[in-house]
């Protein structure tokens, strides 16, 4: 175990102390970003390019009576106005979703959520396109909407998906994990059972860059080049081939610099397809970039889980079992992005970090008249909801038992000797050592002193809360025998070429949205081959340039592509051994590796560096049989299991008793993501996720009124934390390498988003304990906190 990490000063570029391999180095992508030379989708301008804009439905549920585009079409600068009827003629009115459902590209029959796509205008510039939207006349026949998921299955509820044959209700799926009978028995025998309804409200990833695309269809050779804000360029290419009928080898998807993704840019949105259709129809490149309200109202939201949780324990605080029934609001189309077998994602890791006797969960998915989505916002395929549930329930249990929540957790952790640990819902946790991580967080926080301070403050009527969350993630999807999306196995490729002069290029199938792939993956190659990271170029985001793979989400880049890159580098290293042996006129088995060099065992002075071997490979060295004349390799990595990062978070809040305003005073985060490649980037990933947590816990929510009007459709109402709402994060770490991952790394991208909301809510509830509060739902806005203090924890809006 390592203690608090130093943040070593990083000397200016060119310093000899720069690590070859893992360590804190500046990011290779930063020089272009700090000069304003990043290259995002909206920065792309192609010759003759036109601009598209989408007309969206102002109501949540309505039959489309008529649509008149004549005036819009006559507007100066307008080239085309495309409607659902036009798409029907092309067979493109509906597109498959990532969850085996279909979604309307443009409305043909009826509107199913406010903000749904109704028509697409293509014009000379973005101004003319927006102007023309106002000139399209649409008549709607209003229908009663289904807004509250709890009423979606009521007899007589309006059927939203009457487009699906034989559909008579709004039910999507039922899914369960664990053993119900065993769980019932454990609950029946328990001394203590506590239950709580817990709502994880609808939130939105809201990356700073909205979604957009530039489609360039060449009618002569039938080739489509699509620049897209996508986290999964290869999956998109395959899906476009399926949707648009363009052969896959004629499609090139380019994902340039992406201004944040957080799961918002995984799915295929109607806008992308419309840009393609617009380019086919006009014969010119078409750019479509949504505005912020379109992003918030129509693209993939996150969460929206209503969870009934129960926890069973002995009176001395041994947790026995956990049970939950979930009602999942999937919106108007089932468009969640997750492995096919798991309609509730990885929610069934809701057993958390505890050694339970039994656990059982059921999840029911329903349609409502709201935007589709659900799996997004750094959720690790619903681990967010799972961790929130278990970490809230454990706190509620602690309150019931009168136990300190840290003590209760420490008592029930899975013990280090129990790993690999098979939990009660089918996971095999690869590794873990929870107690030292928990203890480190408590030490950093000064936990006992904080409790003492709280005691003194309570005596003075001041509201201070201390909240703990201990999470276990499951990331790095995944093994192809269990995990696919629409039949595409969740593996990643990597190709590595070492050029004659010893410089290298590695091509990967995942795509960065700010995670620093150009640096991290170069460092992995550097560690394995012993050449400096600056000599290694990382190519990503272009399907013509990179090997197939499923993209970046679910914290899978390091666990999956990181494994692929380590293995491809080892393959090159092994090949180098044979070439070095030929060059040194010895046998490969007589050579030994030190970082960057093969040398003769027993005589380190005789050896060849990677650069020398690369020149030899491409040069005139007589190559051994079966070795071809390059220093290249490729792999596709199929991870044997997922990885299970974990962490201990402690949050300290102060609440103004007169206004209900919550101030996050301190936040201590100790993460264990296994092997650490670039500590600076890891820390950055954690900081960002903690800020997401503050957002969700205190202010972010997408709400609807009873008519289905979205109340969070702009940044005036969808509030995201600024620098004023978050503290100076205190981070620490432990290292428990993954036993099955090639370099022992586990992934860090979503840990903090997953782990922090319960710590903050637990702190708020802890502060409100003098009022008898044991639970309140997010977001803990000033109004809600004040209402909770009055005994009304869930005020109606």
């Amino acid at each position, binding site marked *: 175990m390592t203690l608090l990490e130093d943040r070593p000063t*990083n000397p*200016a570029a060119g310093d000899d102390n720069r690590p070859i391999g893992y360590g804190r180095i*500046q*990011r290779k*992508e*930063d*020089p*272009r*970003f*700090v*000069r*304003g*030379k*990043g*290259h*995002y989708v*909206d*920065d792309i*301008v192609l010759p003759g390019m036109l601009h598209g804009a989408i007309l969206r439905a102002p109501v949540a549920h309505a039959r489309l009576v008529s649509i008149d585009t004549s005036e819009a079409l006559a507007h100066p600068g307008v080239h085309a106005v495309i409607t659902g009827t036009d798409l029907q003629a092309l067979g493109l009115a509906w597109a498959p979703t990532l969850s085996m459902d279909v979604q309307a590209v443009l409305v043909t029959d009826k509107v199913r959520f406010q903000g749904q796509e109704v028509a697409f205008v293509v014009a000379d*510039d*973005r*101004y003319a396109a927006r102007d023309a939207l106002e000139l399209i006349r649409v008549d709607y026949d209003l229908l009663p909407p289904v807004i509250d998921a709890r009423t979606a299955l009521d007899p007589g509820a309006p059927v939203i998906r009457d487009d699906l044959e034989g559909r008579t209700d709004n039910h999507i799926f039922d899914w369960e994990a664990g053993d119900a009978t065993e769980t019932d028995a454990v609950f029946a025998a328990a001394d203590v059972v506590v239950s709580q309804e817990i709502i994880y409200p609808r939130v939105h990833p*809201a*990356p*700073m*860059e*909205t979604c957009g695309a530039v489609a360039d269809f060449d009618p002569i050779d039938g080739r489509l080049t699509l620049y897209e804000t996508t986290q999964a360029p290869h999956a998109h290419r395959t899906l476009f081939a399926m949707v648009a009928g363009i052969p896959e080898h004629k499609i090139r998807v380019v994902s340039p*610099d*992406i*201004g*944040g993704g*957080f799961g918002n840019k995984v799915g295929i949105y109607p806008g992308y397809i419309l840009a393609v259709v617009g380019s086919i129809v006009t014969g010119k490149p078409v750019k479509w970039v949504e*505005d*912020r*309200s379109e992003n918030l109202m129509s693209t993939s939201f996150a969460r929206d889980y209503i969870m009934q949780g129960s926890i069973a324990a002995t009176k001395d605080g041994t947790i026995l079992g956990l049970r939950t029934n979930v009602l999942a609001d999937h919106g108007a189309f089932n468009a969640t992005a997750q492995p096919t077998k798991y309609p509730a994602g990885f929610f069934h890791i809701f057993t958390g970090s505890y050694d339970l006797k039994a656990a059982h969960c059921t999840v029911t998915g329903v349609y409502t008249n709201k935007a589709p989505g659900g799996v997004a916002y750094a959720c690790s395929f619903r681990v967010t909801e799972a961790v929130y549930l278990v970490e809230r329930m454990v706190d509620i249990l602690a309150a019931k038992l009168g136990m300190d929540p840290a003590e209760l957790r420490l008592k029930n952790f899975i013990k280090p000797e129990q790993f690999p640990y098979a939990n009660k819902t089918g996971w095999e946790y690869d590794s873990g050592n929870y107690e030292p991580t928990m203890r480190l967080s408590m030490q950093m926080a000064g936990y006992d002193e904080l409790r003492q301070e709280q005691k003194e403050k309570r005596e003075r009527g001041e509201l201070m809360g201390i909240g703990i969350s201990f999470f276990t993630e499951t990331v790095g999807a995944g093994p192809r025998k269990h995990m696919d999306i629409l039949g595409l196995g969740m593996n990643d490729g990597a190709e590595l070429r070492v050029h004659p002069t010893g410089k290298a290029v590695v091509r990967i199938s995942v795509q960065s*949205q*700010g*995670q*620093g792939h150009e640096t991290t993956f170069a460092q992995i190659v550097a560690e394995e081959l012993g050449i400096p990271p600056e000599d290694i170029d990382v190519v990503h985001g272009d399907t013509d340039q990179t090997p197939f793979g499923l993209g970046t989400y679910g914290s899978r880049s390091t666990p999956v592509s990181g494994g692929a890159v380590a293995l491809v580098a080892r393959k090159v290293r092994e090949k180098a051994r044979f070439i070095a042996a030929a060059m040194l006129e010895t046998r490969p088995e007589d050579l030994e590796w030190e970082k960057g060099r093969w040398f003769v065992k027993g005589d380190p002075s005789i050896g060849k560096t990677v650069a020398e071997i690369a020149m030899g490979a491409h040069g005139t060295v007589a190559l051994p049989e079966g070795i071809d004349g390059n220093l290249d390799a490729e792999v596709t990595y199929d991870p044997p299991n997922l990885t299970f990062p974990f962490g201990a978070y402690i949050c300290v809040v102060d609440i103004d008793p007169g206004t209900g305003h919550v101030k996050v005073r301190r936040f201590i985060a100790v993460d264990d993501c296994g092997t650490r490649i670039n500590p*600076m*980037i890891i*820390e*950055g990933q*954690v*900081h*960002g*996720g*903690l*800020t*997401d947590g503050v957002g969700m816990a205190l202010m972010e929510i997408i709400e609807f009124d009873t008519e289905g009007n979205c109340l969070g459709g*702009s*940044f*005036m109402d969808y509030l*995201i934390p*600024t*620098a*004023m709402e*978050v503290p*100076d*994060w205190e981070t620490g770490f432990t290292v428990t390498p993954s036993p099955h991952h090639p370099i022992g790394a586990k992934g860090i991208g979503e840990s903090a988003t997953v782990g922090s909301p319960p710590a903050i809510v637990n702190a708020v509830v802890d502060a409100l304990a003098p009022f008898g509060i044991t639970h309140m739902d997010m977001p803990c806005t000033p109004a809600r906190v004040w209402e909770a203090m009055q005994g009304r924890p869930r005020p109606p809006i």
Partner: protein
Amino acid sequence: MQVTMTVNGTDITEEIEPRVLLVHFIRDVLRLTGTHWGCDTSNCGTCVVLMDGQPVKSCTVLAMMADGHSITTVEGLATGAVLDPVQQGFMEEHGLQCGFCTPGMMLTARALLDHNPHPDDTEIRQAISGQICRCTGYATIVRSVKWAAEHPVLSNADTDTDSDADADSAHGATADEVRA
């Protein structure tokens, strides 16, 4: 209408529609795409540029309103190969991830440091409180600005009496040149 302004030290005259927003003028007309936009309601601050040295949200300024004024975008921060200390600070302290809010954050930081060479954490946080970053959690942005404060450009015009002795002498350009 004709609009004339100075952008990153260069005088520019263009013919535009009166309704063209400054952010679109900069991006679409001048093709300086380092200035981004991220919302419809003047909340996010990714479009921040300096107008006569003061940060403004260029989505809420008409290009016509900038007529006769001086605009600095992220492309005007560095002097040739020499980065502004703020740019260097963002690289040193990991003040950026996806890079989308970064130009606006750096320009606000530049204006802050011009006004207050030694801001404390709270002053930095207040200065950037009209700008949203979704990636960094802000702490590294604060560190980046502090790094820049601790490594000011040595200049004749802008003598910083209590500048650190280890100020980076590689940044030998004058403040005016850097700002140009």
